[in-house]
């Protein structure tokens, strides 16, 4: 079943390469032309649009008990309810769901900035954490093992339906819309596909911001970045220590961390590209560490915690933290995710399951779905060489590829925010 999809996806992929017409971007003013710098630093101060604060848009946390009968392990006792955020209008308005990227929360910086922009533009905003965020794993993932394109979409769809059921009698939504960045964009594509069958929302517009093509490829790229640590992974300690020291030099001269701090720190620290890559790898590893451990405890799989060993809420976890810092996300895919799902799909091979977790798998749907558009960067670091072509070929002029920005570095840049808003406001009632 998987193989058939892959073959179908692949042939369409090849066919499409004959006809490609991407929306081109001219005179793009985003200043950071280095992909690693852009990814780490983001958008320098002054180049972001002026937006209302979270207080002004009344961006508020909400709690949702998705599985009331769930018995969580004592160690994860606090994770029963899923936390998300809303910022609502007091009049009928279109509603937009925001899905965060890998390891990120509903109230992470990128989602918050998008919420501010969309609320100002007149949308009801519902912001949801990534299925890879530990709170989502404990409260909203049916299996506790995430990274499966269809099942993650089903988990997200379930919570979106439940959230809407709670909001339905409070607000009037004139249409439903959907966006997400990075892994959240990948989730959004699968959610749009699922919605065609379930029809709870009939999404009007869906925007994918910097999605991966193949999740496995992107994860491998990020995993390999940690190898850029000078002297290899065993020098993690020294590398980190040195980083903190140079960081402190900048910290001493600055009054507060925030705003332009990262940009100044970057300029002052004079990091090499390999070091920036290592930094990205380290930050990715830190989120995967929390995610994988949560899944391990939820399922008692025996990945780093011995199977059967019960850890209480006061248990010392340093050893597991230390082990997981040395285990890549690809290791998780091969030695946890694959054996776990093999139980449900006994015939599936390792390669098939990897191929299935990709946009290629649903390329024919994406090609024909006019409501879905893409905003991406030519130099995104989470794509293998050539993978960016997938978007030109499948989405044609519904894909806008910016020349710079790395991975989501330009997501707060004025022109990109305007693009985001225009996608949803054009032709809206």
């Amino acid at each position: 079943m998987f193989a058939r999809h892959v073959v179908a996806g692949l042939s369409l992929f090849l066919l499409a390469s004959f006809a490609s017409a991407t929306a081109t971007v001219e005179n793009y003013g985003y200043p950071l032309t280095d992909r690693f710098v852009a990814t780490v630093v983001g958008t320098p101060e002054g180049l972001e649009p002026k937006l209302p604060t979270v207080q002004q848009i009344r961006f508020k946390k909400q709690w949702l008990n998705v599985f009331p009968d769930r018995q969580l392990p004592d160690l994860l006792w606090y994770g029963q309810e899923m936390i998300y955020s809303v910022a609502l209008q007091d009049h009928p308005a279109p509603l937009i769901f925001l899905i965060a990227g890998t390891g990120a929360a509903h109230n992470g910086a990128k989602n918050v900035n998008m919420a501010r922009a969309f609320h100002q533009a007149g949308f009801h905003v519902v912001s949801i954490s990534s299925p890879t965020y530990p709170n989502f794993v404990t409260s909203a993932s049916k299996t506790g093992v995430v990274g499966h394109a269809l099942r993650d979409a089903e988990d997200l769809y379930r919570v979106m339906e439940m959230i809407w059921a709670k909001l339905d009698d409070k607000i009037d939504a004139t249409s439903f819309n959907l966006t997400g960045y990075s892994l959240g964009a990948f989730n959004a594509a699968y959610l749009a596909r699922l919605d065609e069958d379930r029809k709870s929302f009939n999404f009007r517009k869906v925007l994918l911001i910097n999605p991966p093509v193949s999740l496995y490829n992107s994860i491998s790229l990020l995993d390999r970045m940690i190898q850029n640590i000078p002297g290899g992974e065993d020098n993690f300690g020294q590398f980190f220590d040195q980083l903190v020291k140079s960081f402190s030099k900048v910290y001493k001269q600055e009054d507060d961390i925030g705003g332009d701090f990262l940009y100044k720190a970057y300029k002052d620290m004079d990091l090499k590209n390999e070091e920036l890559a290592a930094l990205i790898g380290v930050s990715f590893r830190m989120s995967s560490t929390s995610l994988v451990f949560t899944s391990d405890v939820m399922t008692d799989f025996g990945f780093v915690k011995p199977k059967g060993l019960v850890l209480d809420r006061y248990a010392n976890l340093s050893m597991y933290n230390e082990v997981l810092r040395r285990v890549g996300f690809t290791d998780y895919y091969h030695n946890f995710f694959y054996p776990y799902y093999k139980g449900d799909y006994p015939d599936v091979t390792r390669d098939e399951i990897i191929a299935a977790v990709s946009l290629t798998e649903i390329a024919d749907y994406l090609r024909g779905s006019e409501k879905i558009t893409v905003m991406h960067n030519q130099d995104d670091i989470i794509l293998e060489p050539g993978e960016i072509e997938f978007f030109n070929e499948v989405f044609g002029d519904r894909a806008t590829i910016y020349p710079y920005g790395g991975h989501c570095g330009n997501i707060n840049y004025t022109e990109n925010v305007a693009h985001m808003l225009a996608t949803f406001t054009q032709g809206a009632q």
Partner: protein
Amino acid sequence: MSSIMPRLISLVAITLLAACSSTPPAEPQVYPEPVFEAKRIVPPEVIDVTSVYDPWEPMNKRIYNFNYHFDQWVFLPVVRGWRAVVPSPARTGVHNFFENFRDVRSAANGLLQASPTKFFQSIGRVLVNSTIGLLGTIDVATSMGMARPDEDFGQTLGHWGVGTGPYLVLPLLGPSNLRDGVGELPDFALQNYLQGDLLAKPVRATTFLFDSIDTRANTSFRYYETGSAFEYNTVRWLYMTKRELDVEK
């Protein structure tokens, strides 16, 4: 202050005792080896940079847990009430008022660290804010672009070479270490002394309460909210690193 502190202490003590007595004795049991095991994965010579000297971890984790429950049942509901009842400009005024005392604390510690810069920057802010800023309720100094050193007795001890000692989670106050925890006492005494001199007795009695509410209202951290089982470790490492940088600053 005098009436709530002992009650809180006994509350904490009860929670800790209850938690300790319910811990079952460790039984030796053999578990199957996990897919990735420390002995095989982590070379012995590798140093864990995020490790922190934390011999009191079992107690600290219980206080961490207590702080969460105190937040849920007392602190955060009070903060929400505070936000609902007191209008924003008044809250800012109260906040600035307490920050003005923190500038006095920074001045005193700047002096103790033999740092004229920190001393004069802080005392300058206090003079401006206490006069033009109407007894500290308006932060004129920041509007004028005056730098704001943030110095406390923990940093002063660190400045003169006193080590941090073990990591310590304080009831209500959260992450700290032995040195910084001890440092809270002279800072608190100084603030109490100043407020005792300046404020009428009935007002003085409530300042501790309002200072606490104001501080919590301006701290976005929520216990356990990251959902990560490693949150305690991460917070511990971040706190210790930040304090190390603060002392150097």
